[in-house]
């Protein structure tokens, strides 16, 4: 998490009233863009990242030197074709890649906010990112898109700003975080908070990070992103660089070694407090609550065209929860498309090379852009 001075960011001057009641202003929002905004400014797509993502959706992430989290989907001739579209992605509020979050410095103490940072919600994240439209002078986006927590932001965006995007692509998400979702997030948070380095969230960043707790949180979460079948096929009971069991607690199995590795690389790029704040925001997400249990009401004012995608092997945000969104939209007679993509790759499918998924999005976006322009909307 060094070299954050390299990232692009806007400073949001307008005060933002958070759901928790506090108000923030003059805060940074880090972003990245891909492709070119055309003269009519009608080809912009705002992409929302998931829990552990950041603004570097495509190409090489200059901070981690790894591929962007949506490199399969965003780029020239890809699903989100940067030859045609202008892709914007911002680091969420509460994140740790340059946006305002618990790792930001509190001017009062000259130390990181830590757990003194206000608790934020998906609604706050979306309201903060809305400022990006003003920054680029974009009157109306062509599309908003995102998977998992990114999908939740898509739903919230359309609900908050019904006439600011023509198309919405919520992928593998839910309108209301389930008890199971909350349970898994709580497991991760407890892992972090049980690490003695966590120190009530007031650890000194890059010095005594609660890496062990964060790594366990990541390991647990990682299992929820995969399917049983996918895990079995990839790892089965295969042993890790050994021919026999060692009768000890080292990583005998490849799956153990794999999870340990996932945990260890994660702590290099992610802040434990950000993990707490962002999972909390997901848990608080319940778009139906604001509308007294009637999800349709959340989208009543919009003419946005929806395309909802789920995956057969995703048990974290299963098809049934995605379909609830479809049903709510159908009740309004909204323009909605829905498909469940067949894959063994679990919830992570939206981040991976799943050709049926990527090709359908690509064709859908290209055709829809063409058709809407033809009609001059």
């Amino acid at each position, binding site marked *: 998490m060094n070299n954050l001075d390299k990232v692009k960011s806007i400073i949001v001057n307008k005060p933002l009233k958070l759901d928790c009641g506090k108000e923030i202003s003059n805060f940074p929002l880090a972003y990245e863009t891909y492709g070119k905004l055309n003269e009519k400014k009608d080809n912009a797509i705002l992409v929302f990242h998931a829990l552990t993502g950041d603004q570097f959706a495509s190409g090489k992430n200059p901070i981690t030197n790894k591929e962007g989290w949506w490199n399969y989907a965003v780029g020239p001739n890809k699903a989100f074709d940067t030859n045609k579209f202008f892709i914007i992605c911002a680091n969420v509020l509460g994140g740790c890649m340059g946006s305002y979050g618990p790792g930001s410095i509190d001017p009062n103490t000259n130390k990181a906010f830590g757990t003194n940072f206000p608790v934020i919600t998906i609604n706050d994240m979306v309201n903060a990112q809305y400022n990006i439209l003003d920054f680029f002078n974009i009157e109306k986006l062509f599309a908003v898109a995102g998977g998992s927590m990114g999908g939740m932001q898509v739903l919230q965006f359309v609900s908050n700003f019904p006439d600011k995007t023509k198309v919405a692509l919520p992928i593998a998400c839910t309108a209301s975080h389930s008890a199971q979702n909350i349970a898994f997030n709580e497991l991760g948070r407890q892992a972090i908070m049980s690490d003695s380095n966590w120190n009530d969230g007031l650890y000194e960043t890059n010095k005594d990070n609660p890496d062990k707790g964060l790594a366990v949180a990541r390991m647990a979460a990682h299992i929820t992103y995969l399917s049983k079948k996918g895990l079995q096929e990839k790892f089965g009971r295969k042993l890790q660089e050994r021919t026999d069991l060692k009768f000890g607690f080292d990583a005998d199995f490849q799956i153990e070694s794999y999870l340990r590795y996932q945990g260890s690389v994660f702590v290099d790029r992610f802040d434990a407090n950000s993990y707490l704040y962002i999972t909390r925001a997901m848990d608080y997400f319940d778009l139906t609550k604001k509308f007294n249990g009637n999800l349709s009401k959340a989208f009543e004012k919009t003419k946005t065209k929806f395309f909802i995608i789920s995956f057969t092997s995703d048990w974290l945000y299963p098809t049934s929860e995605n379909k609830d969104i479809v049903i709510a939209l*159908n009740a309004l007679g909204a323009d909605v498309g829905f498909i469940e993509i067949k894959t063994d790759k679990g919830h992570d499918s939206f981040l991976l090379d799943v050709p049926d998924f990527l090709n359908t999005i690509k064709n859908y976006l290209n055709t829809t852009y063409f058709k809407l322009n033809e009609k001059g909307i």
Partner: protein
Amino acid sequence: MKKEFKVISDLIEEKSRALDIGCGDGNLMEYLLQNKTKDIRGLEISKEKVQKCLSKGLAVIEGNAENDLKQFPNKSFDYVILSQTLQAFLSPENVINELLRVGNRAIVTIPNFGHWKVRIDLLTKGTMPVTKNLPNEWFNTPNLHMCTILDFYNFCKKRNIKIFKSLSLNGEKISDISQSNLKFKNLISELGIFLIEK
């Protein structure tokens, strides 16, 4: 069958809201988009076909008419279209009821099992008919409940379903079906097209 598309299209008023059930590759939807109304949705059971429809930017959802029509409110469409699919349902009766609940009117087209070629096939060969419109063998046909134009006509009468218009399609020839020519049309039509309401 492009002719069927035209007949269906002619039954639909401009700028109305339509739902195409079992929309397949979305060909009828595209035809209607070009010729009749911009407000059209589709429901399709095959993932592969839904993918094709979405690739064309059509508002199609993956689903099965026997379970997924529930989600649409009463009378949320002006027209619900069921083109040559009725015979493939477990319970065609329930599907018809749902069509008439969701739509003000329904357009149902049925491949006619009463066509003379079908009758001759069964009479002379003694085997289940295989024709241009019914290309499958008995053991691999998706069709569970074949019916004739006469069967469907009687079905509607018995259940007080109003038939606004009934048309016969034989090759490229379109003609009206009426009470007086019903038995004859049942013999010569490949396809029956009904506009109904309850």
